[in-house]
């Protein structure tokens, strides 16, 4: 998988497979992670639907007929930094990136939106799911 194919249909399918095969998503209660969330990459939105710590479906351009609890928004450049095998400081993890946006008012980072309580109730499983974007992007890390 290369950076040029980031966020294509094939990329999302690889990401789904990576999450659904991940050992950490099956333990420590992460298999109870059932909150749907969206990812905005610039103007493009995809909905990640979670069921028992696994991705059941990835839906481009979700509508009012869909439900989600929270989301992550950022421009394409921030996401492309986030998925690098060794990402640069401050776009290397979701809380780090959100902090630089929300607390330090800096541009070029990711930002969390939605229900903070549900974010923190599912923090590690959600964070791990996002980290697995990096694993998928780099063929599992070679």
């Amino acid at each position: 998988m290369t950076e040029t194919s980031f966020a294509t249909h094939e990329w999302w399918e690889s990401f789904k497979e990576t999450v659904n095969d991940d050992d950490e998503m099956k333990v420590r209660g992460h298999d109870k992670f059932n909150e749907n969330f969206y990812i905005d990459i610039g103007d493009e939105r995809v909905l990640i639907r979670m069921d028992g710590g696994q991705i059941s479906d990835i839906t481009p351009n979700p509508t009012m007929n869909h439900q989600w609890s929270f989301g992550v928004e950022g421009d394409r450049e921030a996401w492309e930094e986030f998925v690098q095998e060794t990402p640069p400081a401050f776009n290397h993890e979701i809380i780090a990136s959100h902090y630089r946006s929300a607390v330090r008012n800096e541009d070029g980072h990711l930002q969390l939106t939605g229900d903070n309580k549900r974010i923190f109730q599912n923090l590690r499983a959600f964070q791990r799911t996002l980290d697995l974007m990096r694993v998928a992007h780099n063929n599992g890390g070679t």
Partner: protein
Amino acid sequence: MTETHQHGDVEPITGKYVHVEIEGVNHRVYVEENGPEDGIPLLCQHTAGNNCQEWRHLLTDENLTEDFRIIAHDLPFHGKSVPPTTQQWWTEDYTMTAKRFTETLVGIADAMDLEDPIYMGSSMGGNICLELADWYPDRFRALIGLECGAHSPGFYIDWLDHPQVNTTEVNAYACWGLMAPQSPEQARRETMYLYEQGATGVFKGDLYYYSVDHDYRDKLDQVNAQECPLYIVNGEYDYLTTPEDGRQTAEGIGEGATAIEMAEIGHFPMSEHPDLFNAYITEILADVTGDRDEDLPDVMTPDDVGIELHPPAPAREKPAD
């Protein structure tokens, strides 16, 4: 971590309890130490909500413990320092303040009769260097503030002490991104494991000091680094107190304050990448003791200290076949 041990090996760290009077209350404080009794005392403070095990790799560094008596303690309510038996502590939220924190550190140094010790702490333990240099400039030989800044807002978060949140895991993994992704995964996971040992409300209570009570933005001129040299040493991946925050803090303090950036490491340097941190801190301690001829660089890199990084590995588990 390059250490390897064989069955029957015994590490040279010793543990004991010292009783310390803090704000009129007697506390039973756990300390671990290694190094010669007449070595230069180096008192090490853990991060918010954690305990002295963060320092275990420094405590067993064979080179540093030739010259330094390295001491790491658990703050009251942390690790093996149980709450005071004379107080109904369960009827109020644990809250750390700058006043209580400095009294604790000076109290430990006094109770252990430490003569001219060096103080080193990370995160809340780094920030407190400013209050120590302001209020107790004559008690320490030098202060090393790891991940230190004049102000570190935004981490006093209610979800860190909430009945409908798994705070055991959240208090740890809220800090996951404070570490550099290229630090060894085994060490980063151990740092999270240590966080998962904290008592309810203690991490958030420490963060009251860290993100609310500590604010030196308008009073850096009160920090007396001329009498007590102050080293502000921040990791490249620390998003709470960045290396740039450290440089600005040192510039605001002026003479006696030195800022150094540690490349390729984060907010828990001593536990997230012990080999690299021990190499970095060896250079800084040599400056403290006058054993270093050259000025410290503005940025220290792994190459500078002869450490070869592990292959980049942010989350490198391969999917199962």
